[in-house]
Every structure is written in C-alpha cells, then in structure tokens.
C-alpha cells in the first residue's frame, strides 16, 4: 500500500502523465482514500492551470526575423577575414611549390645536359714533343721567350737584344 510520502513524490509525474501504469494505479488508489493528498493534487492542478492561462505564448515582433535575415545576408556578402587569410596562404603555398618544382626541373635538365656532354666527350690524342699539351694547359705561348719558356727550355737561344735573367737553381745540377 502506498504511503502519503510515496504518493506526493509521484504527484508531479502523475499530473504530467509520466508515471508507469502500476504507479498510476497505486496513486489513484491512494488518492481515493486520502483527502490530504487529494488536496495537494488540487493545488498542483490549480498552479498548472493558472500558469498556462495567464502566461500565454508570446509572439516575437517581425523585426526579429528581418534582422536575422539581414545578418545572414551580410554574412553571405561579406567575406570573413579568416577566409581571405586562408586563400592568401593557399596561393602562396601553391606559388612556392611551383617555384621550387620549376627550379628542381631546371637543375635536372642542366645535369642531364652535362651528363650527355660527358657521354659524348672524346679525349684528344696524346702529343709527346717538346711543345706538349702541358704547356698549352698552362695557357702559355711556347714562342713567347720573354716570359717563362726561357727557364724551362735548356736549348733556348734568346733572340738578339733580349736580356735573359738566369735564376740559379741552387747548384743541384
């Protein structure tokens, strides 16, 4: 059998039709024999009715929706700064990737050209006379007696009028 305390704890849910079927039957049975709990139920019913009758639904003024639409329109027309930032960052990144890629490709092309040149290179035939390629490699003119050739060619006879300065080699010979 349900006590008054049990019934009072269930009255709110009972009013809202949110009790289980068995609880509803128990509360019904209790209310039939308890004047105090029935009185409490009447008070709660009066409160609900009073609130629902005197606090009616309220309609928002038309300006509310108009301003919302205006705000949404502004949002659509106006590009947010962070979107612009992302767009700029994206373009910069694309530009960077493009530049680096092109430079890499350019370097690869140059390397390929060098490799090709190396592959096609034929070394010159060896020359073994006194005017060897070594001299040419030094970028020296073997007929320019006035410069270094005089010291290197032991058979050198200086032309008339050319002063030759002989440098001692320390007497090693």
């Amino acid at each position, binding site marked *: 059998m349900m006590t008054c305390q049990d019934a009072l*704890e269930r*009255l*709110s*849910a*009972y*009013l*809202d*039709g*949110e009790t289980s079927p068995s609880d*509803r039957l128990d509360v*019904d049975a209790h*209310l*039939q024999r308890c004047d105090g709990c*029935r009185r409490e*139920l*009447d*008070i*709660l*019913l*009066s*409160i*609900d*009715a*009073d*609130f*629902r*009758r*005197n*606090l*009616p*639904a*309220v*309609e*928002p*003024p038309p*300006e*509310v*929706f108009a*301003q*919302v*639409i205006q*705000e*949404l329109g502004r949002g659509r027309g106006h590009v947010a700064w962070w979107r612009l930032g992302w767009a700029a960052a994206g373009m910069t990144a694309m530009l960077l990737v493009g530049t680096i890629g092109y430079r890499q490709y350019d370097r690869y092309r140059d390397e390929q050209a060098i490799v090709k040149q190396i592959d096609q290179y034929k070394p010159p035939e060896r020359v073994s006379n006194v005017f060897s390629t070594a001299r040419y490699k030094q970028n020296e003119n073997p007929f320019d007696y006035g410069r270094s050739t005089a010291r290197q060619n032991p058979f050198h006879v200086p032309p008339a009028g050319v002063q030759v300065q002989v440098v001692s080699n320390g007497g090693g010979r």
Partner: protein
Amino acid sequence: MISGAVLKQTAVVAAPVDTPLAELARRAATDDLAFRELYDRIKRPLFTFIFRMVGHMGEAEELMQETLLKIHRNLGRLRADESFLGWCFTIARNTAISHLRRRRAPLDPIDSVPEPVEHEAVHASAEVTADLQKMLLNLPPKYRSVFILGVLEQREYAEIAKIMGKSLAAVKADIHRARGMVREQWVRTRGPVVLGGGET
C-alpha cells in the same frame, strides 16, 4: 483526481510534429523561403521559452536573434534522427543560460511583462501575469527551464531529457522540485484567491 483519458489527450496535443520540420530544416540552410517557413513554425514556442527564461522583452528579442543565427549556422550538424524542435530548444536554452550567467543588472519591471495576446487578454491581467512571471524568475535557471518546458509547454519528459542533456529520472526529479518551489510562492500570493474562487 485526473482521468487517464484527459492526460492522454494532453499528451497527444503536446506532441510535436517533427517530420515536416526535419525536411524543412534540411532545405533551410540554402533556401531562404524554407528558413522563413521553418521560422514561422518554431517562433512561438521558442520565443515564449526564451522570454519566460529571461523575463525581459528586449533581451528576449536579442536572444531569439542569436538563437536563430546559431540554428541557421548549425543546420548541417542536425542528425537525421534528432527532433528538430528539441534541438532548437537546446540551443535556445544554452543561449538563455549563458545570458543569465553574464547578466548582472536587475530587470526593468516595466519591460518585463509582455503585451498579452489579443484573444487571451480577457483572462490575463498584467498584474497576475507579472506575479507569475516573477515566481518563474525566482527559480534557479535549471529548474526554471524544466518548469517552462514541462508545465507550460507540456513537453514530454523524454524530450526534455534530450534538451537538457539529462537522464529521464533527473528530469522527473527536477520538475518535481521546481513544482515544489513554485507551489510555495504560489500559495503565498495566488493560492487563496484561485482556490477560493472555485478554479479547481
């Protein structure tokens, strides 16, 4: 005592019809006309809830705008199995609670009572309305919101539980507690008048 038939009828009337709303919600993100239609369907319960939560017409209008903008921006996040109106109530409730936390200044009593709807003006006097609204505002926000949804809006407990992000048992306990707090105030100010006047 209440008959089961009366309660059942109340529950049927209070049940939200969400299927068309969900379809409208899917279109409303890109279609202004659909959003307008959606707004027309939800504006009354949503604005009433917000207004009863804050008790101030000007603030309620601002919060309604804020809520609508949040709803529009987040339409894509609405799950297919979710009740649209319940989802809107969740956004409205969170917006109102955040506002109440920020608010420091007391309410202006002149602006806190709305103009009654025309056909109900016969029953409601401004004084009674102000008394009842004041009782609501005396409740802590969490009890106020469940009282508005459960008693005034007559939403089902399961739906309120989703809106509040609570269990069914917690909602049941909160509504019971809210009714108790309102009862104390109501018996002090309105009880003898209404009960003596044969209202029950």
